[in-house]
């Protein structure tokens, strides 16, 4: 049987289909259209709600294959890998794309070795090569200084992971869009695991700046710690993590895990917003690879404007609340 079709690995949590699944549909739909083939969403879990599965069809999948068992409620490498391999063997997709989540980045490299195929991590661009139909996978290499395009010419399926929030989630094309939902009970012999999940403790601060897709950074222009809520509200409106320049950390206005720069963390979000940050080289080293950069500063000569896409010169205490309000208004349906 020939390998055929584009697949995505949809993810669920507590039976609810996760956002990454819809982002992957955006990616997968484009590839399937270019190849002229079907898009299939596979999902592993226990008691996955029908709305979620229909939602995958509504957003552009042609088929959903859900393999279920109580043992698949949470990600465990062995049962997940075996069930995925079973589906890959039975259906033989040509391409399989997963999110570069903690699940995707564990499961795919394990399965890629088992099925003897290539895998490219953290792709930012996926495309199809015109002459061959091969998947072209572009990813940043060596600290983001260089982009590399990679393909897997002779092995199938071609596998890739893509960074979460590196694309918009697919929106509903049509309610109750036609398509096939295949629910399968996972074969019991695939469900043994040498790992047992013993518990889960949610993170208190869910906004880690390194993983965040939107980072709002605050600099000395904020003047004192009491003023931080002004910028925090902007961060909230963008669903962003709050970072800071070294000046702010050294003054004790925020804690070290928030520091962006050479002596702090490096961030490569989709959007970076610098508020009252001058843009010392040490700070630039930690953020200039952000995809989009917005700057608000009262000094028109601030270094940060040089790496920015768009910037406002003016008083942050006047500008930020207005901008926050506009973003919040735009978000209302």
């Amino acid at each position: 049987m020939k390998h055929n079709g584009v697949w995505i690995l949809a993810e669920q949590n507590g039976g609810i289909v996760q956002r990454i699944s819809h982002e992957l549909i955006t990616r997968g739909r484009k590839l399937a259209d270019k190849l002229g083939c079907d898009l299939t969403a596979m999902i592993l879990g226990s008691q996955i709600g029908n709305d979620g599965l229909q939602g995958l069809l509504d957003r552009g999948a042609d088929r959903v294959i859900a393999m279920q068992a109580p043992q698949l409620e949470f990600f465990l490498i062995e049962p997940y890998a075996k069930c995925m391999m079973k589906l890959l063997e039975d259906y033989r997709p040509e391409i399989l794309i997963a999110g570069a989540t903690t699940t995707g980045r564990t499961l795919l490299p394990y399965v890629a070795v088992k099925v003897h195929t290539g895998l490219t991590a953290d792709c930012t661009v996926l495309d199809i090569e015109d002459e061959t139909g091969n998947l072209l996978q572009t990813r940043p290499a060596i600290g983001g200084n260089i982009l590399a395009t990679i393909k897997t010419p002779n092995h199938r399926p071609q596998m890739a992971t893509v960074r979460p929030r590196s694309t918009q989630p697919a929106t509903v094309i049509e309610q109750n869009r036609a398509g096939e939902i295949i629910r399968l009970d996972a074969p019991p012999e695939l469900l043994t695991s040498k790992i047992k999940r013993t518990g889960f403790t949610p993170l208190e601060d869910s906004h880690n700046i390194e993983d965040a897709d939107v980072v709002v950074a605050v600099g000395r222009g904020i003047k004192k710690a009491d003023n931080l809520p002004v910028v925090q509200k902007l961060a909230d409106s963008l669903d962003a993590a709050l970072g800071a320049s070294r000046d702010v950390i050294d003054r004790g206005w925020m804690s070290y895990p928030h520091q962006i720069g050479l002596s702090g963390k490096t961030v490569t979000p989709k959007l970076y917003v610098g508020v009252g940050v001058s843009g010392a080289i040490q700070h630039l080293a930690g953020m200039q690879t952000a995809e989009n950069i917005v700057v608000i500063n009262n000094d028109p000569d601030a270094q940060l404007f040089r790496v920015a896409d768009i910037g406002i010169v003016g008083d942050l205490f006047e500008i930020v609340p207005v901008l926050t309000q506009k973003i919040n208004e735009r978000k209302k349906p």
Partner: protein
Amino acid sequence: MRIIVPIKQVPETSAVRMDEKTGTMIRDGVEAIVNPLDLYAIEAALLLKASQPEGQCEVIAVSMGPPKAQSAIREAMSMGFDSGVLLSDKKFAGADTWATSYVLAAAIKKLGDVDLIICGERATDGDTGQVGPGIAAWLDLPVGSYVGKIDGLTDGRINVQRLLEDGHEGLEVQLPAVLTVVKEVADPRLPTLRGKQRARKAELTTWNADDLNLPDENLGLNGSPTRVVKIFRPSVTRECEKLIATDDQSINTAADRVLEFLQERELV
């Protein structure tokens, strides 16, 4: 018990040149260090060793790389590792993560009697994080990834906390197993002077493809399912659109324009 830590020598700086033809890195002339994220795996292994009765736990570093990668193994030994194996052969060159994990797994198999393999989360040069789970697949072992804390080791099981997107997940893992660890797991120690002296004098084992009895077709660039098609510099030409906001009206206009920008770029 026996713990193995696969480590990688990586270029010190991010100023690395690429071979335009093969799309692989040119490592010559750049100072090489132990992958910083591997230091956490090394430290986690040393802490486990210290938690076991004296003489009951052996920690071994393995590294695939050119002959000069032996300095990475010596560094692990200067921190307290018992021994190390360098996997070096021209045939290994240009390996992707499939072919790399293949060789590392073969060496681990040859060492034998392994209870635990601890890997860093990823290497700072290749940045894939795929080799750890790949080794687990080759050896048919369970893998606990993104481990931020090791709670304890008893009765052939290890209890760990994985750092997930939204919290810490507790796992009880039956040994033998593979773990990949993140920074939170431990604070790497510095090599001691005595350790350095010991490491300098130590005899290292070096294995090539024949020692591991590996067929050529699975090695290096030849054995790698992936191919680099091209490499290029990202275009970072940013011309800042500067908006001057001095009064209510210009602030309003500027904020509208920024919102429009965010919408154009699909950021809100």
